[in-house]
């Protein structure tokens, strides 16, 4: 089932060139949708459009069928969550309070989180396997754990679609796999993840479908095996790639050494 979709959206910042031109994309229940793109290809802008924070000048974002600009702010935040690379939380805030912030769209403006919100937050933290960190301060946990905690915040939002902005950017391989593995596991419960990344191999390992974003345009979303080709990678990143096949069916993409600028 398609939960969130972009239909030929174009976006530009005031007096700037098009960052996105005619991008179409959808996020299905149970899927991890990868978007691969080079630096500055508009991945973050696309995610901000998808959660309704930026309004595309052309095209339409649909949230469960209705245009997202018509969905009220709080309702939107109950349906779509953003998992940023890092959070600028208050100094000294605890892990549990960070997850609790996900309850905001469920609370009235003068309300503080109650017993039930605490229970939802606890459950969300358990779901990413970090229940034992609840009382720690956010600045005491590792970068990978912090990323998972922000996923838990999205779960506490009870959003069906979670948009992850380069979750693998600043993590070591182990945590990259742990964070993306958690996303894939949660997707199987019916959620949808939209993940932007620089790393084709992470997409090969965890994606349900992959699209390439470059020059403001997005390729069709296809399964990893048929998406990751030397041609597609070269077109996206501007350097030659080779795609290697391992004996156990694993596929890996590797830049091909080359001399000087092309």
């Amino acid at each position, binding site marked *: 089932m398609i939960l969130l979709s972009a239909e030929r959206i174009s976006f530009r910042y005031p007096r700037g060139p098009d960052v996105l031109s005619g991008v179409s994309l959808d996020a299905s229940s149970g899927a991890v949708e990868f978007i691969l793109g080079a630096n500055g290809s508009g991945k973050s802008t696309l995610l*901000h459009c998808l*959660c309704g*924070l930026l309004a595309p000048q052309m095209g339409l974002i649909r949230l469960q069928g209705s245009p997202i600009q018509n969905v009220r*702010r*709080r309702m*939107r*935040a*109950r349906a*779509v*969550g*953003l998992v*940023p690379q890092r*959070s*600028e*939380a*208050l*100094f*000294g*805030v605890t892990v549990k*309070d960070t997850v609790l*912030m*996900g309850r*905001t*769209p469920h609370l009235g*403006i*003068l*309300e*503080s*989180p109650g017993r039930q919100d605490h229970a939802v937050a606890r459950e969300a933290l358990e779901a990413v396997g970090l229940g034992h960190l609840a009382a720690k301060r956010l600045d005491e946990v590792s970068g990978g754990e912090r990323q998972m905690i922000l996923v838990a915040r999205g779960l506490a*939002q009870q959003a069906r679609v979670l948009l992850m902005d380069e979750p693998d950017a600043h993590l070591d391989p182990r945590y990259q796999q742990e964070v993306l593995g958690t996303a894939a596991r949660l997707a199987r419960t019916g959620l949808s993840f939209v993940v932007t990344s620089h790393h084709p191999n992470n997409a090969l390992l965890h994606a349900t479908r992959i699209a390439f974003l470059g020059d403001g345009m997005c390729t069709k979303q296809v399964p990893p095996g048929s998406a990751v080709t030397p041609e597609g990678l070269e077109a996206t990143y501007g350097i030659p790639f080779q795609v290697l096949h391992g004996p156990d069916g694993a596929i890996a993409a590797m830049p091909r050494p080359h001399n000087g600028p092309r």
Partner: protein
Amino acid sequence: MSTRAWRSTWVVLLGTVVLLFAVALVVGRYPLRLGEAVRLLLGFGDRESLDAAVLLRVRLPRALAAVMIGANLAGAGAVFQAAFQNPLVDSRILGIGSAAAFGAALGMLLSASPTVIHVTAFVFGVLAVVLVALIGWRLGASKLVLVIVGVLMSALFTSLLGLVKYVADPLSTLPAITYWQLGSLSRVDWSEIPALAAVSGVGLGAFFALRWRLNLLALSDIEAESLGIHVRGERIVLLLIGTAIVAASVATAGMIGWIGLIVPHIGRLLVGADHRRMLPVSLLIGAGLMIGLDTVARTATAAEIPLGVLTGVLGVPAFLVLFWGMVRRRGTV
């Protein structure tokens, strides 16, 4: 900080404020016995006596005004610092103080009536913040934009205040403006209390209800928006409420600086940055500090020391200590 430690901090602070309030009622040029003061407050004793006049007509309204103004300045400071994600912001930086000061001085120039002075102080305080809010909104209401526009408003109203002082009668109006500008509670009487209490009650009540939401304002704008928060709207609403309580305070007591800047820092040192704890604690510290300082201001010397002078003389070194620690800890500003 554990819940128990937090609870005892709270109780100790509340006790201190009550104690300082009691001290403020009994000490002064005409000392009262505590027992007599309590009996009068409870409605017993001779209400025509000099004791009753000093306690009920002079000291009680002044003490009430002190706790409200202290809480207002501290609360507004804490909220402004949260809304602008900047621990060095207070109402003066946002132009509210100098606009209200200009308004009050203009009021004094036009009329000697305290009502006129209150109304003009309030009107110009709100005018400044509405200008800041409108211009800021058009430019996206980012923290930096609002602070820059606030500094500009502050400069404008300070210049206009200079003009008012230049044309004021040097024998009567000018000393009055100057004294008021230094900040003092000496002219407070019951006529000021209802309006001050109403504005403070509503404003501080709203801040208290919003204490959890203040934590969310530490997030980046994008992150906060993604949680369904109308960041621009909430920032402007908080700014307006803060202005109302600051302007009411300025109209009553003149310019009393530094409380709004320093008290939130003391609150953070005591209970951490979480506004669910820091805000109530800051309100108590502000109230206690103000009533304590006012008692010192009127009893330390034969002539009363202007309260604003006292907060400045103590506030600058206190701030320097905090600032020193902050810079040393981070290695940079």
